[in-house]
């Protein structure tokens, strides 16, 4: 359910049935959707609402809160130059979410980066492997429980 404050926002209204919650802070609209709905939400945002540019995809680790990871998508509309932030929360024990690659080809590298740094698996991604770190690297460094001091680091 979306909060009252978003009732006059047309973008939020168009995605209201998919969004679990949302907010408008600093003039930026954030909508949160269930991980299973993310492809539907991105698809509608691109094809119905005109958010044709995917600016970036990233992750946030909310350890120890569950569901632990946030996958964050930043979209932009070329017609109105508006921006939209979509979020999906994925659990820590099985971090999986559907890939956005069929909708935005640029999601390919962005999602590989999230996979590399957070270990979130993107289902149906065409080429899911590490992009920055070497293939044999162990662990996912942007996780909050990744050690930053010690013998190896």
């Amino acid at each position: 359910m979306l909060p009252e404050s978003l009732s006059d926002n047309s973008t939020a209204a168009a995605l209201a049935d998919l969004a679990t919650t949302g907010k408008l802070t600093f003039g930026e609209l954030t909508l949160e959707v269930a991980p299973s709905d993310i492809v539907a939400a991105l698809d509608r945002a691109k094809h119905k609402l005109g958010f044709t540019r995917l600016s970036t995809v990233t992750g946030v680790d909310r350890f120890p809160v569950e569901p632990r990871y946030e996958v964050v998508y930043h979209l932009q509309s070329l017609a109105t130059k508006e921006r939209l932030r979509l979020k999906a929360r994925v659990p820590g024990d099985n971090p999986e979410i559907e890939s956005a690659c069929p909708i935005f080809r640029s999601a390919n590298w962005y999602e590989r980066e999230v996979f590399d740094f957070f270990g979130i698996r993107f289902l149906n991604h065409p080429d899911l492997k590490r992009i920055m770190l070497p293939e044999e690297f162990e662990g996912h460094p942007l996780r909050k429980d990744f050690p930053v001091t010690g013998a190896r680091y």
Partner: protein
Amino acid sequence: MPIEPGVTSALDVEKDYEKHIKDPKAHRTMVLNMGPQHPSTHGVLRLLLELDGETILKAAPDIGFLHTGIEKEFEAKTYQQGVTLTDRIDYLAPLSNNLVYCLAAEKLLGLEIPPLAQWMRVMLAEFTRLNSHLVWLATHAIDIGAMSVFLYCFREREDILRIFEMFSGQRMMTSYFRIGGLALEPPRGWQKRVKDFIDVFPSRIDQYEELLTGNSIWMGRTKGVGYISLEDMLDLGVTGPMLRAAGLALDVRKDAPYSSYEKFDFKVPTSTVNDVFARYQVRLEEMRESTKIIRQALEGMPSGPHQADAPGIVLPEREKMKTQMESLIYHFKIVTEGFRVPEGEVYQVIESPRGEVGCYMVSDGTQKPYRVHWRGPSFGNLQAIPRLIEGTLIADVIAALGSMDFVLGDTDR
């Protein structure tokens, strides 16, 4: 043939080795490894090219050689310390990076930046654009074989670096913009130095044009080379001059003005030809527009403080710090433990010389950012490389790559 980037495509060719070696008539492709130390990849980009004779069938970029974990490091530094990291992301446009980081933090803090600092930020960000475009033009020309342009461009770049040094004490890693304003007061006599430079600079651009624009070798190497459709570019995440050379006037300075860009009168140069030559023309035009912005900033520079009035965030004046107890306490607290930033998240976007640079900052209310994500323009642009060069000749790869103007520090972070 399905085109997907990936190192695996190169390995498939090696698997067919047995078959090809036994049958001399079999059609055989070759895999060429370009980089990570190839001079035209400007840093450490590795490209795997599958060649059929001279034609490129597949290209697979391999990045990450310059990954330094900057996004992780932000989480271990206080907000103000993080500014120094941003210089090192895109080392050819340090002030653009300082700016986007500071704007993001200031948005979270709700800080009001005084006009002098805003205008100074605009002026120096445009100097950064000139600096970056000059390095691009110099190296792009030398890649294609025009040695002398390199020397002329670096002559002017030296002047810009001296101006940076005058302002911040540093030539490259300036860290001149800080959360709350500028690091130091603008130096005495900066107006003359800036004026001397912009008075002469338009004629310098004419010099570069004289060397290149009508040059038949330059035209032969760049015209009609490196075409990629606008739809592909948008879908693959390309921003900046490449889009503008394809006719789309997408520029954050106009679309969502920041740091009082709305008060400046400038054009967004575009072209519809969409080849390497058009990108060259767009960037040269951008340099002329930047010079105009700098002149407006110089002539209309407001007076006033160079830092916001925010005692707990901005360091007190040196003199006050030595004489007043209150200031000394603030100074000590800011330096030792930083300042708290209210909980929240922002995505601040600005136009860097290479395109859209975005800073996604998440705060949990402590002195250190909970998460900083950097959307580097080079990372988005590089993804289009396979589309850009597949099907073209190997000699055109250098020109096409150069026209992208990527910085590997920005790609790998």
